[in-house]
């Protein structure tokens, strides 16, 4: 019964923390934060996205401390985020301003500006590359030198491209989109309420756990949902972030550029039937929107799918129920509650024990009572 009479907790924790440190470094090597940043782009992007904190260095530090466990790294960054005061809100970012690195459409072959494959694993063969076993810094530098000579001539130009959807909109195939200039709700400052606003939904989705968001979106398109989406446009690139001048708010020229964020943006198209005047039925496209920090394409697409699902609640599928989706996809919440089951519950258990014993006694009484009644 050692678990019940928990004593010496302080000592136990200290020893446990030492042991954890041992596990992290017992190979006698340490991994520099800069190397994580340099070589683990996918993980860094995922952690930044789920943490809703854009800082590659801190994400790399969290990954180091968490020994590469994304669940733990996100947890660290989110907790850090809680301590950071909110000093500014950025100005609205128009994604047309994106400096595009990659951009594809699954709907149209010929899109204004063209398809740009950019960096993607989509067409790599997933064969283990054993040459990476002994890749050296020297070899890497050399390769870079030649690549740069070959690919970058002169100043690298900013590449901004029109949105694919604007083209469809001009044709009247998707309804015109009115800008909603309401201040978005901030789910980290005010808790979610239901029915939720779209800004609340988009925030929860973009910081959702990658696997959870993907699984639910997969369920939707596999059959537990009512959507048949196509990728209208997927683009990856960097967006400039600006904040207002403290005294001249709203003046574009006086806004401060504070940096840029790399994001994946997806606009999904879902064909729907709409009823016009005189009951005339027409097909139109609706949009599902996904935007996540870093290059996280599967998650961005999944977000676009779920965004549209939640615009159309139906009791038929849990994936169209906002409480079901939004309450369960957060990494820190789901892993926290699951892992809390490891905590001792012996008072609650003692209490239940008392009730169970009572029913054993009452139960016999009850049975006799019933026999009398039916007899």
């Amino acid at each position, binding site marked *: 019964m050692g678990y019940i009479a928990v004593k010496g907790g302080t000592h136990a924790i200290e020893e446990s923390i030492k042991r954890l440190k041992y596990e992290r470094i017992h190979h006698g090597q340490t991994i520099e934060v800069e190397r994580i940043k340099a070589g683990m782009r996918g993980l860094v992007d995922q952690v930044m996205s789920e943490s809703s904190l854009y800082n590659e260095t801190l994400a790399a530090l969290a990954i180091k401390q968490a020994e590469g466990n994304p669940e733990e790294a996100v947890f660290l960054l989110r907790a850090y985020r809680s301590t950071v005061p909110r000093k500014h809100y950025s100005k609205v970012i128009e994604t047309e301003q994106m400096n595009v690195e990659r951009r594809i459409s699954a709907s149209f072959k010929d899109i204004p500006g063209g398809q740009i494959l950019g960096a993607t694993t989509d067409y790599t063969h997933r064969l283990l590359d054993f040459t990476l076993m002994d890749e050296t810094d020297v070899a890497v530098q050399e390769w870079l030198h030649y690549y740069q000579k070959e690919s970058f001539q002169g100043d690298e130009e900013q590449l901004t491209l029109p949105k694919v959807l604007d083209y469809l909109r001009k044709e009247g195939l998707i309804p015109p989109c009115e800008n909603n200039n309401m201040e978005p709700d901030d789910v980290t400052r005010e808790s979610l309420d239901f029915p939720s606003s779209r800004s609340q939904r988009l925030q929860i989705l973009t910081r959702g756990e990658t696997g959870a968001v993907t699984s639910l979106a997969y369920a939707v398109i596999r059959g537990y949902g009512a959507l048949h989406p196509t990728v209208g446009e997927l683009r990856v690139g960097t967006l400039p972030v600006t904040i207002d001048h403290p005294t001249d708010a709203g003046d574009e020229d006086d806004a401060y550029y504070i940096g840029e964020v790399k994001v994946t943006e997806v606009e999904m198209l879902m064909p729907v039937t709409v*009823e016009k*005047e*005189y*009951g005339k039925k027409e097909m139109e496209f609706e949009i599902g929107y996904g935007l996540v920090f870093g290059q996280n394409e599967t998650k961005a697409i999944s977000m676009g799918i779920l965004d549209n699902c939640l615009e159309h609640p139906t009791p038929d599928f849990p994936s169209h129920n906002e409480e079901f989706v939004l309450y369960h996809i957060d990494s820190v919440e789901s892993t926290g509650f699951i892992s809390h089951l490891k905590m001792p519950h012996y008072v609650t258990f003692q209490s239940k024990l008392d009730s169970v014993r009572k029913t054993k006694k009452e139960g016999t009484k009850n049975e006799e009572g019933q026999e009398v*009644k*039916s007899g």
Partner: protein
Amino acid sequence: MAEFEVPVLSIKNLNKQFGSGCPRCQDGESPSFVKNYCPICGTVYACRDVSFDVFPGEVLGIVGESGSGKSTLMQCLYFDQEVTAGEAYLADYHNGEKNLFQESSQQQRYIRNNIMGKVYQNPLLGLKMNFSSIGNIAEKLIAAGNQHVGMMENRGTELLNKVNIPVHRRKEAPKNFSGGMQQRVQIAKALSNRPPLLLLDEVTTGLDLSVQASVLDLIKSLQRELNISIVLVSHDLGVIRMLADRTLVMLEGRVIEQGLTDQILEDPQHPYTQQLVHSLL
């Protein structure tokens, strides 16, 4: 019905529309209507100026095809839907002086829990399928302020007995029951607080013929025994003939004919009613 009697329930000019309406149909009437539907904006006028009274101990039948607005009407009466306009008065609520549709949702809940009972066509709407049958009855008793387990158990057992649910199955959940049994549990639940008014919405639709007959018999005998007032909605004139003293015929959201049930069956006036009666014979 005698003129001097005070109605249990009185409905005046109940209107319910789905959709916001457009300039062409805002008066609820337009030459371009398809039945009660505005093809321009898609608004459905489900109930149009429906008025009627229900008297003590009376069974009022409402018959009509699907889409005639009768089920919407029932939903409005039990506050499952909000009315667009209209008034409703219950003799047992503030002496029939307060329009129920204007009351707060808290008060409407009180009215549902204490003065009315409803049996839905779909038992999922009327029962908690995973709770025991007797618990389902207790839910309504608790809602009306009951705090005594023994009394609720006795009342529940008595009611289940009345609707022919065997005593030994009273602690079973309705999800284990057949459709007919589920309807009988719903009836028991609806009757639990001895409401002066019972609403029955297509209660036998979808049941086997023999089961239908037994449920109808049950309703009939309970009504006689308890002298309760009933509003009964059905698309089946056979059900209406068996139970209703007086009948309203609804078509496209309006009441097109009303009178004693016998009279309507013998001498229908409106062409639609005539068609309905002929198809019964």
